């Protein structure tokens, strides 16, 4: 928990000023989108909220719905 | 320019400080009890597992070199604890030791014969699964109480467990037993047909204190101990497995009376399994080189005809040892030689049909033993020191 906030603050500090100074707006938007996702995920992890695993979803889709899997032995 | 240089220098100094060591996982040596040997027994009263661990006392090692006052503080400490399973008992030990047991240096695992007769399967998982244990640890069966074995302070070594490991590694001198480590043991356990063997250790009363003595091998059927091999029979087993390094072959003198001692220099074994007409035949070819080490007779054996005679008798002796082992294994229906696996590797399709009946098929195996012995030298004497 105590790692979360400083680390994300540092990430912000390293990246944002340079982007604003160089007026790279597109990059700034992309940065903020991913940054927010990362922050939300980090928050969820720290607060013990279950994060949906993309692989579990894919696994359900392929193994259960489509039935493509190898037999167990 | 200097700014980036100082930055780099600072990073070089900081990074090792921050990265080395571990967070919450680092343990000092003082917080660990280093275990060099473990014994598993059955507690007579409660029926639970009685675990004995031999822990090294730091500070004592090296300070008592040689026999500086034999009764001085022992360099080790045997702690016992009971538990329902081995891991349970290990953690129970912290009630007595205060520190966690560190089993990474564990050299021997000794099972008491009562546990061995009941079955080892239930008590071996921890030694394999624990990430600190090494598969090179030796496994032994004790004839008596395990704690007695671990208590017997040896004369030349400080720690009994290390002493036992040393004894096991010296099997080459007599080839009367062989070291079995955890990996070898479970290889046999996992095979559906092979019977594992393990050396038996006992404590014999010596002059001042007790001596550790490795007296033979225990035969297991699956995981239960069912029988023993004595020295001769063990040699027979090792002849077939090709694990003879050196040893003494005592042959009766072909002449008048007395015995002759031959030293085994090198032995090569080749076993060929054959399945013919529904009968299983094992061709065992052994090529042995020996040297005349001692003759306890008057007649001079260092002659060509003498050598020939001795070679013949030698071959008989070896065949006898092998047959003794084979008879014992047939009696117990235990495939200690690994013949089953040899057939498996050569005739895998036919193997699947017979492997379930292996217990019944095994005693019908025909063993063709062919030994070629050659005496290569007679050391320093060309004639026995007799008059005339």
């Amino acid at each position: 928990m105590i790692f979360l906030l400083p680390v994300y603050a540092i990430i912000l500090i390293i990246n944002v000023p340079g982007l604003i100074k160089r007026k790279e707006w597109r990059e700034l938007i992309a940065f903020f989108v991913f940054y927010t996702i990362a922050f939300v995920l980090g928050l969820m992890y720290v607060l013990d909220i279950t994060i949906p695993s993309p692989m579990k979803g894919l696994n359900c889709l392929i193994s259960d719905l489509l039935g493509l899997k190898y037999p167990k032995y | 320019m200097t700014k980036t240089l100082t930055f780099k220098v600072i990073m070089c100094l900081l990074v090792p400080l921050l990265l080395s060591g571990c967070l919450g996982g680092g343990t000092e040596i003082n917080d660990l009890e280093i275990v060099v040997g473990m014994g598993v027994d059955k507690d007579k009263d409660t029926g639970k597992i009685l675990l004995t661990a031999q822990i090294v006392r730091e500070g004592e090692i090296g300070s008592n070199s040689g026999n500086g006052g034999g009764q001085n503080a022992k360099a080790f400490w045997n702690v016992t604890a009971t538990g329902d399973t081995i891991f349970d008992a290990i953690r129970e030990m912290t009630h007595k030791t205060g520190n966690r047991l560190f089993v990474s240096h564990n050299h021997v695992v000794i099972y008491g014969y009562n546990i061995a007769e009941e079955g080892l399967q239930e008590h071996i998982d921890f030694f394999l699964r624990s990430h600190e244990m090494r598969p090179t640890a030796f496994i032994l069966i004790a004839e008596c109480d395990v704690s007695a074995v671990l208590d017997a302070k040896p004369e030349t070594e400080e720690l009994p467990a290390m002493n036992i490991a040393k004894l096991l590694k010296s099997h080459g001198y007599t080839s009367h037993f062989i070291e079995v480590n955890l990996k070898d043991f479970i290889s046999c356990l996992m095979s559906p047909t092979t019977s594992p063997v393990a050396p038996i250790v006992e404590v014999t009363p010596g002059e001042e204190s007790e001596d550790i003595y490795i007296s033979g091998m225990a035969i297991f059927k699956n995981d239960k101990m069912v029988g023993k091999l004595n020295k001769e029979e063990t040699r027979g087993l090792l002849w077939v497995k090709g694990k003879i390094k050196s040893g003494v072959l005592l042959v009766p003198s072909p002449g008048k009376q007395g015995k002759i001692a031959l030293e085994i220099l090198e032995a090569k074994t080749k076993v060929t399994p054959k399945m013919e007409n529904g009968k299983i035949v094992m061709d065992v070819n052994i090529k042995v080189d020996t040297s005349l080490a001692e003759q306890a007779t008057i007649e001079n054996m260092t002659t060509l005809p003498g050598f020939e005679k001795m070679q013949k008798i030698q071959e008989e002796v070896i065949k006898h040892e092998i047959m003794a082992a084979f008879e014992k294994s047939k009696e117990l229906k235990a495939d200690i030689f690994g013949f089953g696996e040899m057939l498996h590797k050569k005739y895998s399709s036919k193997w699947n049909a017979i492997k379930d009946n292996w217990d019944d098929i095994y005693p019908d195996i025909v063993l063709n033993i062919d030994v070629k012995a050659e005496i290569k030298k007679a050391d320093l004497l060309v004639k026995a020191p007799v008059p005339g």
Partner: protein
Amino acid sequence: MTNIEKGRISGPQLLFLVSGFVQGSVMLIDFAVGMAEKQTWMVILAGLLVSIPFVISYAALAKRFPGMNVIQINDIIYGRILGKLLSIYYIFFLFITLSFNIRDVGELYTIFLMPNTPFIFFLAVFTATCAYAVSRGIEVLARISYLFVITGIFVSISTTILLVDKMDFSNFLPLFELPFIRIFQGIHIMVSIPFGETIVFLMIIGYTNKDGNVIKNTLSGLLLGAFSLFIVAVRNTAVLGITQTIWTAPSFQSTRLIDIGTVLTRMDFLVGIAQTVLIFFKCCLFFYALLLAVSEILGLKSYMPLVLPLAGIEVIIAATVFQSPLDHAEITQNAGIIYSLPLMLVIPPLTLLIAKIRRLPESKGGKVT
């Protein structure tokens, strides 16, 4: 289209990049043993044979469009909408496979080396190091590839030599014991994971020098990497024999058996180092490809701002995508290798075919490469 990546790598560097990448899957061999047992060596060889034509197609595709990466190529061949969709499939693959690999390293440390340290700590430190390495560009990765490949090969070969006296080659008999479906699954795993993941290089080969001999170097790298995996599989089967299947990581256990002169014992740390370093390299390449691909598809000028946020996302995903190593193994052996199959076996050769048919890219003088 100006390129985000300005660096260039040489032909031999490409070879070592590919080799180091393939070697990074050495831990995977340990997982495959549960399935292929004593036939792991032949599964590796068979997987290699199956993969060779596909890997050649990846290199040929990249060669056809020099200086471009696959996202750009997809746009040219498939048009803007379909091309972007395929690129998203590719990016998803990079994203999730990177999280699997980061998790692999975490599992390695948690099970064997430092079991008391919290799992996410390894993931975070490891990913941070990856992020740092990648932020320097492909040239740096190419330069260190020599070192990693040599370390990996050195450890594989030296541990094998030290274990020669404990090897029993009859452990390979009988040769064809297992039912074919298991062998097939084993081959599928080999094709998808060590060899198929080289589609990562579709983002990288484009930046090789002109006389880089792309196809030859990529293929040689693949063979060198596969050779290292092969040796490890043979060593483990010969030394451990029938017990091979019970261990979580046979490579560690077989190295623990080295016991020469009471001095050369406990060599498993060597294996730990080599595996960490190689997986690190693999993750760096994945991460680099991911960054470049995402930046390319969003039309950014540089991938630098995305390094840390993507690293953060990867760490959390790696920590939560599976519940335990068991989960990881089971899902990877089934759905994990199936979903990526079209991406590895169908799309690049198809792209190459379409490029050939439509004679793209048009080069000066109308001469088609």
